C-alpha cells in the first residue's frame, strides 16, 4: 500500500476536474486522479459547442441566456446559479481562447457562434447564435487545451488510478480518497484537506447511450454510499438523435445547421408539436416527440426510429461544419447523410442530477444547503442546479468551465485556513474488502455473471425508466434492480490477477451503476408529476404546488430516504413551457 499527502485531490480529469486543478496549480499541492488518461475523458466526445452570450454575430445578452436556461430546465433551475452560469460563461470562453483553444472564427477573426436548441433571443422570440464551437469537436478541443495547460503547469497526475473510496474523518470531514493503480493493482491512500469529485456521468445505466463505457457514475455512487445525498436523479436526459441501436451521438449542431427530423411519411413532425422552435425545441421535448411518433406507428418502416435529414444542406457546409457527425453515420451505419436520412432514436445522454452543490462547488447535505466539510463536486457528477429538469445543449461545457473554475478557486482560498483531519483507522478497509470479495467469490453461475447483471439492468432501465415512465414501470424496475443488487453481492470476476485487472474494475463500476439506477428510480417514483426529462404517463402535467422542489435521496442503513429542497427563484416566475 502506498500513502500520499496532498493539500487537495481532484478525482476526474475531464473538463471540470482539470479546470479546477488549473486554478490551484503552482499555488497548492494538488493531485489529479483519473481512471483514464486525462485526454481520454468523455469531455472529448462533446461535439456541438459551448454557449456564451458574446454577441459576436448577432445581439445577445447573458440575461437571455439565463432565461433560456431556466425555462429549458422547466423552472427547476436554481436561478442564482443560472445567473452565475450565464454571466461567467463569457469570461470562461475567453479564458479558453487565451489558453489556446482553436475556436472557429468569423471573417473578422472573432469567435464564431451558431444556433443550438432552446437558445433564444429576447426571452424566447426566436433562435439566437450563441454556441461557440470548434467544428463539431468542441469537447475534443476543450479537453486537449486543458490537458495542455495541465502539462504546462506540471500538475501531479495519477493516471489510470481507479477511485475506490472517499474518506471521512470521525467528525465527518472529507479527508482523502483511496485508489487502485491499474498497472500494478496497488492500493493508494491519498490523505488531503479537501477532495473534488469530477467523475462525470452514468449513461451506462441504460442500454442505448451516448456515454463512454467508462461513464459509470463512480464518484457519485461512492460518495452516496458514504451517506451524502444525491439530488434530482430522476432527471436524466435522453438526447433525440443517437445513431439507431448504437446510441452514438449525432450532435444537435446537425439541427442547428438546418437538419430536420422526419417520420415515415417524410413529415417534419417537430413543427406540429413546437411551431416556433420546431426541430430546435429542447431535447426532452424532441425526444418525446420522437417517442410519440414511434408509438403512433410513424417510425421509419414502422420501427423504433426516425430519420435525421441533412440532404437539403449544401455539401460544403456538411463537410466544413459537421465532418465528425457525418463520419459517424458513414462508419457505423453505412449511411451517406448527403443523400439519405440517418436513422436515429433517443439515447441516454446526460445526468442533470448528481451530488448537490452550492455555487462554489461545495457539496451540500440537506435542504438548508449545509456544506459537507472538505468535499466538492463539479461537472456532470454535480448538481448545482443549473440544468434543472432538462439541460440545454452546450450548457454542460459551460457548467464544467464555470463551476470547475469556481470550485478550484474556492478550494484554494479555503486551503489557507483548512486543517488536516485525521484519516479514519484502516482507511483502505472498505476498498480492500470490495476487491477481496470480488476476487475470492466462487465462480459465478449463470445469471450472476457481471455482464449478465449489467445487461439486465440496462434493458430494464431502457424499457421502464427512459423517455416515459409510470408507477407500474418504475415499480417493476425497482424490483429488478433490487434483485440484481442481491445477485451482485455473490458475483465474482474471472480474472484474479493484480496487473491491469479490467475484469475487476468493470465489476466495481457495475456496483456504482446499480446504485445510480436505484436512486434514479427512487426519485422518479416519488415525483408524481411530469417536468422536463421526467415524464410520467400517469401524471402528465407539471405540479408546481407540490413539486417545484429538488429531490434529495439518502442511502441509509434503514433503506432509502427522500427529502425535498426548495428551488431558488430570483427573477423568472414559473410559467408553462411553450416553444
Amino acid at each position, binding site marked *: 500500500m502506498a500513502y500520499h499527502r496532498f493539500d487537495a485531490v481532484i478525482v476526474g480529469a475531464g473538463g471540470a476536474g482539470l479546470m479546477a486543478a488549473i486554478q490551484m496549480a503552482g499555488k497548492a499541492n494538488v493531485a489529479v486522479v483519473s481512471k483514464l488518461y486525462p485526454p481520454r475523458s468523455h469531455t472529448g466526445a462533446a461535439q456541438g459547442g459551448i454557449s456564451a452570450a458574446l454577441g459576436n454575430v448577432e445581439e445577445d445578452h447573458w440575461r437571455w441566456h439565463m432565461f433560456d436556461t431556466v425555462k429549458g430546465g422547466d423552472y427547476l433551475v436554481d436561478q442564482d446559479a443560472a445567473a452565475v452560469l450565464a454571466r461567467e460563461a463569457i469570461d470562461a470562453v475567453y479564458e479558453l481562447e487565451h489558453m489556446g483553444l482553436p475556436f472557429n472564427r468569423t*471573417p473578422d477573426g*472573432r469567435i464564431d457562434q451558431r444556433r443550438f436548441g432552446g437558445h433564444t433571443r429576447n426571452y424566447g422570440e426566436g433562435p439566437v447564435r450563441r454556441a461557440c464551437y470548434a467544428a463539431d469537436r468542441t469537447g475534443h478541443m476543450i479537453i486537449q487545451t486543458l490537458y495542455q495547460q495541465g502539462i*504546462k503547469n506540471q500538475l501531479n497526475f495519477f493516471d489510470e488510478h481507479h477511485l475506490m473510496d472517499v474518506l471521512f474523518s470521525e467528525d465527518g470531514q472529507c479527508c482523502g480518497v483511496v485508489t487502485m493503480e491499474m498497472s500494478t493493482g496497488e492500493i493508494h491512500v491519498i490523505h488531503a484537506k479537501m477532495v473534488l469529485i469530477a467523475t462525470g456521468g452514468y449513461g451506462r445505466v441504460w442500454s442505448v447511450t451516448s456515454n*463512454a463505457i467508462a461513464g459509470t457514475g463512480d464518484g457519485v455512487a461512492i460518495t452516496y454510499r458514504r451517506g451524502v445525498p444525491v439530488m434530482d436523479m430522476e432527471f436524466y436526459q435522453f438526447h433525440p438523435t443517437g445513431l439507431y441501436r448504437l446510441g452514438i451521438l449525432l450532435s444537435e449542431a446537425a439541427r442547428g445547421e438546418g437538419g430536420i427530423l422526419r417520420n415515415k411519411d417524410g413529415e417534419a413532425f417537430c413543427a406540429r408539436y413546437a411551431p416556433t422552435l420546431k426541430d430546435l425545441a429542447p431535447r426532452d421535448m424532441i425526444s418525446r416527440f420522437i417517442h410519440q411518433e414511434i408509438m403512433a406507428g410513424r417510425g421509419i418502416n414502422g420501427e423504433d426510429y426516425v430519420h435525421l435529414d441533412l440532404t437539403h444542406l449544401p455539401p460544403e457546409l456538411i463537410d466544413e461544419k459537421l465532418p465528425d457527425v457525418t463520419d459517424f453515420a458513414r462508419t457505423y451505419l453505412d449511411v451517406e447523410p448527403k443523400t439519405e436520412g440517418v436513422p436515429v432514436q433517443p439515447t441516454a445522454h446526460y445526468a442533470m442530477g448528481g451530488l448537490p452543490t452550492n455555487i462554489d462547488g461545495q457539496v451540500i447535505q440537506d435542504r438548508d444547503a449545509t456544506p459537507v466539510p472538505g468535499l466538492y463536486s463539479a461537472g456532470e457528477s454535480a448538481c448545482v442546479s443549473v440544468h434543472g429538469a432538462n439541460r440545454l445543449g452546450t450548457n454542460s461545457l459551460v457548467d464544467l468551465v464555470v463551476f470547475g473554475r469556481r470550485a478550484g478557486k474556492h478550494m484554494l482560498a479555503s486551503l489557507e485556513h483548512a486543517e488536516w483531519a485525521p484519516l479514519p483507522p484502516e482507511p483502505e478497509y472498505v476498498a480492500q474488502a470490495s476487491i477481496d470479495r470480488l476476487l475470492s467469490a466462487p465462480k459465478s453461475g449463470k445469471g450472476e455473471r457481471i455482464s449478465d447483471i449489467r445487461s439486465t439492468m440496462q434493458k430494464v432501465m431502457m424499457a421502464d425508466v427512459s423517455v416515459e415512465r409510470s408507477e407500474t414501470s418504475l415499480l417493476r424496475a425497482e424490483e429488478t434492480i433490487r434483485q440484481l443488487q442481491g445477485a451482485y453481492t455473490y458475483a465474482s470476476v474471472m480474472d484474479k490477477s493484480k496487473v*491491469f485487472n479490467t475484469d475487476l474494475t468493470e465489476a466495481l463500476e457495475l456496483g456504482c451503476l446499480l446504485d445510480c439506477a436505484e436512486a434514479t428510480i427512487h426519485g422518479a417514483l416519488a415525483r408524481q408529476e411530469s417536468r422536463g426529462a421526467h415524464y410520467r404517463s400517469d401524471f402528465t402535467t407539471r405540479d408546481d404546488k407540490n413539486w417545484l422542489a429538488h429531490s434529495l435521496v439518502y442511502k441509509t442503513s434503514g433503506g432509502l430516504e427522500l427529502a425535498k429542497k426548495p428551488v431558488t427563484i430570483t427573477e423568472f416566475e414559473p410559467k408553462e413551457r411553450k416553444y
Partner: protein
Amino acid sequence: MEYTLRIKRYNPEKDVKPHFEEYKVTADAKDRVLDVLNQIKWDEDGSLTYRRSCAHGICGSDAMRINGRNRLACKLLMKDLPSKITIEPLLGFKVVKDLVVDMNKFFDAYKSVQPYLIADEHSGAGERRQSPAQREQFEDTTKCILCAACTTACPVTWTSDDFVGPAAIVNAHRFIFDSRDQGASQRLRVLNSGSGVWRCRTIFNCTDACPRGIEVTRAIEEVKRALLYEQV
C-alpha cells in the same frame, strides 16, 4: 458470420512470454472489433485485457494492431475484415498485459515538444483575433487524439529509442503554425535535434495509420520546411 480471432496474450504474473490464443466468435457484419472483444471478455474470458472508453473513435484508448495494421478497435467494423483476424498490441512499447501497452514513453515524447500555447498574457478585452485562413493552417493537426497509432506504425520508432515520433511532431505542428503562438523557436530547437524530425524517412506509415485522417507526413514535411527556411 463466423470469425476466428487470434489474440496475442500476455499476463506478466503468469507468462514468461506472450503467446497467441484463438477464439471462435459469431458476429454481425456491422459489429465493431471492440464489440467482439467485449463479447469475448464478457461471455468467455474475463481476463482478456485492453483499453477502451468512448467506443466511437474519439478518445484514443483502443489503438491496436489488427491484421498487421494499427487501427482503433472501435472504428473498424467486422464487415471490413476477413474471417481470420490477428490482434496484437502496438509495437515498440513495453506490454503491460495482453493488448495494453505502457504509454509513458509516448506521453514523455509528447510533453517534450511543449504542447501548449506559448504566448504573452492577452491584455485586451475579449478574444485574440485569428482569421479563418490563419486557423486553417493548423486545423488538421488539432484533430489528434493521442492514440499512438501513428508513432507505433513508424519503423524508425521501432528501431530507435529516442525519436520523438510522428504524434509529438503533429502536436508541435499544431502550435508552430498557430498565429497566436510565440514558442515556435523553442519547439523547433527540439525538433531540429538528434531525436527530431530529421529521423523521419517519409515512409507514410503514420498517415495511413491515423484514424482521424490527419495528413501526418505532410505536417512533418511542413515542420522540416519551417526549419530549413525559418518560415515561422
